[in-house]
């Protein structure tokens, strides 16, 4: 007797009976608990909004507040989708994502989906400003005060040597999703350093955390706003200041990163629908402090929804401004 056949023969009647019974139950299960209407908010013309959830906590804070307001003040049905950035943009094309609530640059994706395919539109700035740059843990800035000037980096290169950096100082890079010019910077500023790719944001944060705890040297790429800065206030190393056009040729960059005005992207479909959710997405702006306060609550273990409610309740006038 073959095993598969035996298994099939034995389990088929059982499976058939189960499925049959289930059908029967579902058929006559009018009283089932899960059929109860959600009640609470009356449905409006808002309909369903698909919001991409990119994973960093700052984004989660933005999304939590947007979703809270859309659900509770506008009566929208918000569907949250945990996706990384590039897949979120793909979602505009396939109609599965309506809102990206915090976008860092991504000129290439903007060109592909906004300019070329015309499936998404820019919904304006979030009011948050992003700073990308090279950072050191606070204990180093205290011990070597002049390290925060990029000109002195070569003096300290030996300090940053690791088993991965081939005899040079190490510059640790993180999530490859973020645009970096670090390899070009090292070359063009004549730094005795080598860029090492940690490969993820988690690896970068954990490295900084260990460096601060064990007082080991570390120089790495980081960005603000980021929840980790409230745990360990990293100190930025000043590279030659950014001027318009100094980073035009990626091969020849020799200046610091520009400030990023973070913005929101919504699908063309949502923008054209005239839905109040689209209006809310366009009107949504707040400050870095606002975002950090919500992000900190979430990082501290609060559910995003509860953290959003706390902020919305305390900032009624701001929210009313969005809804006008």
């Amino acid at each position: 007797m073959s095993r598969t056949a035996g298994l099939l023969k034995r389990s088929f009647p059982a499976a058939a009976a189960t499925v049959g019974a289930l059908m029967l139950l579902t058929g006559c299960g009018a009283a089932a608990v899960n059929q109860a209407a959600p009640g609470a908010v009356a449905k409006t013309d808002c309909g369903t909004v698909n919001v991409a959830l990119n994973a960093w906590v700052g984004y989660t804070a933005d999304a939590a507040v947007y979703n809270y307001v859309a659900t509770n003040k506008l009566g929208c049905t918000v569907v949250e989708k945990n996706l990384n950035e590039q897949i979120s943009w793909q979602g505009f094309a396939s109609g599965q994502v309506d809102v990206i609530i915090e976008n860092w640059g991504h000129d290439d994706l903007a060109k592909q989906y906004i300019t070329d395919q015309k499936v998404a539109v820019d919904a304006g700035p979030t009011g948050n400003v992003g700073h990308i740059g090279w950072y050191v843990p606070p204990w180093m800035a205290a011990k070597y005060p002049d390290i925060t000037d990029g000109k002195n980096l070569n003096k300290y290169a030996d300090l940053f040597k690791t088993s991965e950096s081939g005899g040079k100082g190490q510059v640790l890079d993180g999530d490859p999703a973020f645009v970096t010019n670090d390899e070009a910077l090292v070359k063009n500023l004549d730094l005795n350093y080598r860029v090492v790719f940690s490969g993820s944001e988690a690896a970068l944060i954990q490295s900084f955390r260990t460096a601060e705890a064990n007082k080991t040297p570390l120089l790495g790429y980081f960005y603000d706003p980021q929840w980790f800065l409230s745990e360990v206030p990293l100190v930025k190393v000043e590279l030659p200041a950014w001027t318009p056009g100094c980073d035009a040729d990626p091969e020849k960059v020799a200046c610091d990163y520009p400030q990023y005005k973070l913005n929101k992207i919504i699908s063309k479909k949502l923008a054209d629908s005239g839905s109040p959710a689209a209006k809310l997405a366009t009107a949504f702006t707040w400050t870095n402090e606002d975002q950090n306060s919500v992000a900190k609550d979430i990082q501290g273990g609060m559910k995003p929804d509860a953290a959003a409610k706390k902020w919305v309740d305390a900032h009624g006038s701001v929210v009313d401004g969005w809804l006008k």
Partner: protein
Amino acid sequence: MATLLRDRPAAATRPDRGSLGARRVSRRTWLLLAAAVLWLLGFLLLRGTGTLALPASELTDLHRSLNRFNGWIAENRDGNPVFMYILTPLRSAVGLVAGFFMALFAASPTGEVIPVLGWLGTVAVLTWIAFAVGNVRVALLTAVVFTFFGIQGLFVDAAYTFALVLTAVLLTLIVGIPLGVLAGTSNRVQKVLTPVLDFMQTMPTFVYLAPLALIFLIGPASAVIATVIYAAPPVIRLSSHGIRSIPENTKEASDSLGTTGWQRLHTVQLPMARRTIVMGINQSTMAALSMVTIAALIAAPGLGQVVVVALQSLDVGTAVNAGLAIVLMAIVLDRVTTAASQRAEPSARRARRLSGRARYIVLAGTLLLTLGIVQVSRTVLWAAVFPARLNVGAAISDGVTAASGWLQTNLYFLTHSFRESVTVGILNPFQSLLTETPFYLLVVVIAIAAYAIGGWKLAAVTTFCLAVIVSLGLWSDAMVTLASTLLATVIVMLLGVVFGVAMGRSRRIDAAMRPMLDAGQTMPAFVYLVPFLGLFGATRITAIVAAIIYAAPVAIKITADGIAAISPTVVEAAVSSGSTPWQVISKVQLPMARKTLALAANQGLMYVLAMVVIGALVGAGGLGYDVVAGFVQSSVFGKGLAAGLAIVFLGILLDRITQAAASTPGRKPGARRT
């Protein structure tokens, strides 16, 4: 894998093997020595030239043209007949099945997060199924574990994961077992299938996840399809291996009785290969579970989401809580499938306590009870939604977070010095030997070695693979990856032999080790990456450790299986003739399990390669980094795709060489003909 299992034309080497064999070995040694000397000389004299290094931020023209792939799919989604008549219906069908199971066990589509069956109903139905196909013990295990998910505060997430795994494993078996049987009985099918399987197993998921999400859209259907691609190879390979491992004389005996091909398959081959096929099903189920976690990156619901979100905020406790649920689910699936296969064995049937009739009565009775519970579960709230009061998830996370914090502060200096010594002493010299030797020289060296090991054919295959890697523009990155991969595989095989032999020789050790192996294989790497980062930093060593944890269990399990399968009379004969345990192991058990060892090495290697990309998330660099970057940044998608291909060809190269090395020296003249 392929070369080992494929039927080899043994006729040429058959006559006067003795004298020829001796000369061949010595010539082989000379060739290998010459290759090594050439390599060393080249390294010393030409060091740093012809390294083909490509900085991480730079692309070649090939990468740029591959970049257009995504745009092409997006433009052709609508209107292209392949999409309209094949891919879209496939997506709908898979989505329907997945949706059905998800609604049943996790959340009905009404918007409320309540399963159609209710949590108690879900537990009852699954327990009953476990009882029906297995036995009381596994049914109890099922009930306890699924209730525990609720206590962890993860019932809905676990149910989502279960629904997706169930869908994926069903599809995998429907496709995989017939293919495996075909490959086991037909050499032609085996020949065609092998490279395809190699491709499926070594192509990193991150490469095809984004395009899959474009083709099949974001969500469960894409997740299931990605999972099937990854989970099908083990069951196909092992089914085929099982059928091919049946002793020649058994088949001849059945042939002499005049059985037809189908009868032989049905009455001899399938039953005799059952042990190996079930191992394949287990491996596929484990692979499916690990893949469902990664599919969280394209919005597949379930435990993977919890892990991925926790990773972003470095919340080790929450990640471990969810990881524990995944491991427990793996154990349940493993034990239930094993129990089901044992029940099907003819000997078990005779020894059964209940007669067929009585058993049906018990089954019917318990089914009625189950349906009663389902009805309760659908009408009473506490049985529909798991009570939030009974939640120890937070306690588990807090405990784990504290423990991991303690480990990281107190072990750091130990692990730090270990890492430094391994990196400086072994990894760095080895890596520079690979990356700083001119590429053309290394190609020649590897080709000579391949010729020495497996003849012209192998030399041609390896040269071809290396040429592809060079033309993909990723030679230097490939050598970085190769260095770490080889180091990890050597350690995996050491562990595989040591623990595999111990487990194969003792049932007790086997029973004690298995849950740990299951845990190592199924605990999502995302869970332990963060504590390891704390211990070893963002370095290649962290990546190697993660790869070992994932790959060693496979090598150990396969080795143990091979050792246990050796006929006890042979071992007894050796013992009674006065052999020490060490002699028994080295002279009898290991040589007799050589074929299985080769399979273990091969699978260990494949699993290490599967972790190359995960390793890149913690500092491994190399090809893995290119793949990760390609997944998250569309401007380097082409380079990621190229890196994925390079990993595949690296895998095929290593695979063929290890297989040949394992099978040439003591090749039996009686290589099987099917």
